[in-house]
């Protein structure tokens, strides 16, 4: 079943490059960004068009990117580098200015090299290594102010506080709606799959933000209008996906999970739900934005900035409980070391909570397709056998 709003989103996405061309003719500047802390609210409030960039699932782009960046950068970063080199992505082509943060040093490296490849102006946002100390907050606010001033110089006018307030409201609304969309997956027999939700979230990287908010509203209303559907999903194994990003174009793991009757009920991915989660904006100001971004629960492909205050594991356990998931598939992209190195500790923590974890370590080629299928299938068999034992006991 395809929801009619999904079709509308698809059509809006098809029209979007031309729409951006029209806006550019009217003087709009497109800011393409890669990172986790780039304040889209500020870009939007200045009258610019923020576009989140990134591509996965394409081995050719990885190979192309590896000619310009070390092959020991993760497949996603090499793929993004390949995207810059190939320069056929319609959104990258329309980008006037590029922005990167250095939370992940591989993203920072991508930014550095892309400056030479793309010949576009590149801006960097510095991120403190210890997120929660007072000096970190001061540093990050300075970085955010500096980033804003640079944007103002490009745009030719200063940031208007009313426009910033409205922009924050719009982005917070999108985040709230995105979380509602993910929450709909918790219900059994829901007429939308995680793969579709993921595609919707990815379309939000590119669509006009007001249009996107309206479409999200419509989609959630349409989902809510469905009564319980007859389906065989009840026997499916309920899974949370965590780990490295699953970028637009990368469907390998999700497809396998779906093919062998798994149901993905949520994620905490950088490329997915995590961007909308736990964003508390206390004041409509640059300081408020800086604090909100720093206070977020960071995604798993970032390093452990602060071991004592790292709340990612607790949050993952909470997500598993809330979604009634039966296990976690921890997706690690080759050379995404920050995610990969955490696997053993994370697995142990989850095991103590009775939550099984399967690590899938992969990249974008299809050579390991069947090996991944076997692992995921065996993981599901293990979960089902454990549950059957529980029922019998």
């Amino acid at each position: 079943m395809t929801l009619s709003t999904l079709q509308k989103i698809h059509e809006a996405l098809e029209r979007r490059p031309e729409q951006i061309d029209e806006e550019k003719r009217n003087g709009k500047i497109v800011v393409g960004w890669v990172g986790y802390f780039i304040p889209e609210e500020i870009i939007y409030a200045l009258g610019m068009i923020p576009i989140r960039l990134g591509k996965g699932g394409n081995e050719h782009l990885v190979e192309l990117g590896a000619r310009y960046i070390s092959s020991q950068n993760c497949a996603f970063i090499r793929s993004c580098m390949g995207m810059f080199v190939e320069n056929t992505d319609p959104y990258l082509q329309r980008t006037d200015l590029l922005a990167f943060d250095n939370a992940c040093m591989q993203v920072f490296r991508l930014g550095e090299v892309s400056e030479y490849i793309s010949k576009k102006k590149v801006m960097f946002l510095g991120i403190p290594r210890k997120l929660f100390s007072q000096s970190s907050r001061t540093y990050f606010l300075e970085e955010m102010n500096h980033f804003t001033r640079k944007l103002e110089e490009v745009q030719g006018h200063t940031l208007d506080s009313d426009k910033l307030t409205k922009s924050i409201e719009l982005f917070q609304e999108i985040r709230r709606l995105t979380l509602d969309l993910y929450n709909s997956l918790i219900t059994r027999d829901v007429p939308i799959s995680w793969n579709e939700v993921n595609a919707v979230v990815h379309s939000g990287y590119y669509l006009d933000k007001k249009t996107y908010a309206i479409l999200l509203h419509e989609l959630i209303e349409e989902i809510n209008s469905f009564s319980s559907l007859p389906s065989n999903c009840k026997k499916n194994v309920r899974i949370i996906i965590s780990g490295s990003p699953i970028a637009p174009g990368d469907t390998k793991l999700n497809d396998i999970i779906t093919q062998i009757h798994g149901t993905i009920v949520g994620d905490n991915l950088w490329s997915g739900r995590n961007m909308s989660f736990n964003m508390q904006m206390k004041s409509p100001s640059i300081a408020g934005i800086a604090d909100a971004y720093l206070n977020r629960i960071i995604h798993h492909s970032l390093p452990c900035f602060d071991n004592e205050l790292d709340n990612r594991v607790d949050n993952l356990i909470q997500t598993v409980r809330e979604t009634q998931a039966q296990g976690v598939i921890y997706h690690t992209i080759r050379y995404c070391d920050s995610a990969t190195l955490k696997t053993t500790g994370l697995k142990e923590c989850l095991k103590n909570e009775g939550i099984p974890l399967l690590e899938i370590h992969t990249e974008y080629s299809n050579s390991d397709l069947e090996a991944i299928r076997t692992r995921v299938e065996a993981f599901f068999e293990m979960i089902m056998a454990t549950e059957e034992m529980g029922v019998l006991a």
Partner: protein
Amino acid sequence: MQGKIFAGVDIGSLTTKSVILSDGAVLGTSKIQTGIYPEKSGEEALKKAMEITRCQAEFPDYTVATGYGRISSPYADETVTEITCHAKGAFFLHPEVRTVIDMGGQDCKVIRVDKSGNVTDFIMNDKCAAGTGRFLEVIASVFKVDLDSLGSMSMQAKETVPISSTCTVFAESEVISLLARGEKSENILRGIHHAIAQRITGMSIRVGIEDAILFSGGVANNVGMKNALEESFQKPIIVPSFDPQIIGALGAARVAENRYNS
């Protein structure tokens, strides 16, 4: 004769195996080379195993296919992964087993098993061929000896020549260099077996090891590998008297029996 007939078919990358069970007893087994069409290999192995049993039934009452070729098995009632099947097969033979090390043609796995024979955790090698039958085939071709001789040759070693690479391609180059340097074949082979054992030991840390440990898969027939694993783990390793290469198919037949009865 007889009760219901249950079959397990394990279509591996190099060999296809089948086991026929009835009333918990093995009636027949077969083992053939996997051809380019896994579906035909599975059918042929099943047919051969059924012929050996001389039972009147033309087809088993329930068949489970496993191994990489399981996705092309229209003759099977169900498919189950080789991870579950190896655990079930090993547990059937040795109920005290809590860890299974399976080294097959193209992958190796460490599987943890509970007291009911269910899988509690597992790890598989990913893209690398180290520690697999294919790796040992390449090494055997360098020494120009049969695959079956590798283990016994390594047992004649007086010392161990360290092998720094377990990458199949680099290890092959390294072995050629060592031979050129005048190192003895048996010492190099012992080093090869130890390098693989070290790799398996490293892998197993991710899932933990608990006694008793059973070694299954075609490589388990290699006495040098068993010896190297025992030295690396500092623990005894069980290689079952039942052909260890057929344990996956045996497990599949056990799953078939359980499914049918439940």
